[in-house]
């Protein structure tokens, strides 16, 4: 079956990451509430992290930590790619900083005018 082979070729982690990115993108573009826009950015970022992680995963291999499952001699043939994991660690921390800043700008905007809808700021509307 052609369709079954096609579905079998999908990487489930990358696919869920892509779906989460699209949900976040929809939230950023279509929601009027600025707090929801900030949260949608955070959701999109989670999807990007999943996608980066899925690139370094190798089926049947173990985490890049030396223990009884893989020692220093067999590391290169038994472990997954550690570079995307290190990059995602950085990406999560930067994402947290960006989300905190976005939310505090949202709080300030809400305190400045009534409501938290982006429609209240004409110059931001498209």
């Amino acid at each position, binding site marked *: 079956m052609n369709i079954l082979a096609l579905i079998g*070729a*999908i*990487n489930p*982690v*990358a*696919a869920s990451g*892509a779906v989460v*990115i*699209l949900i976040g*993108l*929809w939230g950023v*573009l*279509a929601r009027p509430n600025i707090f929801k826009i900030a949260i949608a950015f955070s959701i999109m970022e989670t999807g990007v992290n999943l*996608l980066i992680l*899925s*690139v*370094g*995963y*190798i*089926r049947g291999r173990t*985490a*890049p*930590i*030396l*223990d009884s499952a893989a020692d*220093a001699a067999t*590391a*290169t*043939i038994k*472990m*997954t*790619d*550690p*570079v995307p*994991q*290190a990059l995602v*660690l*950085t990406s*999560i*921390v*930067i994402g*947290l*900083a*960006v989300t*905190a*800043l976005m*939310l*505090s*700008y949202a*709080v*300030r905007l809400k*305190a*400045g005018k009534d409501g938290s809808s982006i429609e209240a700021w004409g110059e931001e509307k*498209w």
Partner: protein
Amino acid sequence: MMRKVLVTLAIIGFAFALLPMVFEAGTPDAPGGLASAYLEKSPQDFATANVVTAIVVSYRGFDTLGEVAVLFAATAGVGALLTRKRLGLTEPDAPKTPSTEILYTATNLLTSLLVMFGVYIFIHGHLTPGGGFQGGVVIATAVLLNLLASPGSHVAHSVMSAVESLSGAFYVGLGLLGAFLAWGFLDPRVLPIGKIGALVSAGSIPLIYSVIGLKVGAELSAILDALKGDRE
């Protein structure tokens, strides 16, 4: 109407851009050259059991220093944006509703355990999954519980900035020691690297990850305190 069409087009375009990755991610059956070199060299170079820690703290240590600087800048930004004056709060707040007995008692029980767990995570960063950032976040959850349990209270600002600046200075100091005593800035081989799997091993990596943990814990606590929105 126009907006809905444009949003749909943007999402479909992104979906097509992501489609090849969904099929190709994870298909190679061996890590690339750089990753193989890291996997092979890091146990010999630094005696770290956790290869990701070796990459984050030493091979790409300069990135991590920049990352900590970004987190500091964000903390400063949040603190500057969310003060009572800037939010237009002039009158003092009405007294806050006290938290429930359950939350208060649980907080007293859990605070010390959470801080201990956070310290455990960042001290063992070179041996187990985890490290400075994860441990710092666990410590910040203890601060969050305390802020929830006594809504009128504040994090001691002077203590937090002292912890933050001292650990930042210690981090850069360890990096400079690496430049003078070992092979480069942030090289962990200023201390003996020891044996793989021992708590005291991997040179200065546990020390660097501990100061990162303290710094991240202090910064996130400051962000949580500022996000309450009633700081002077």
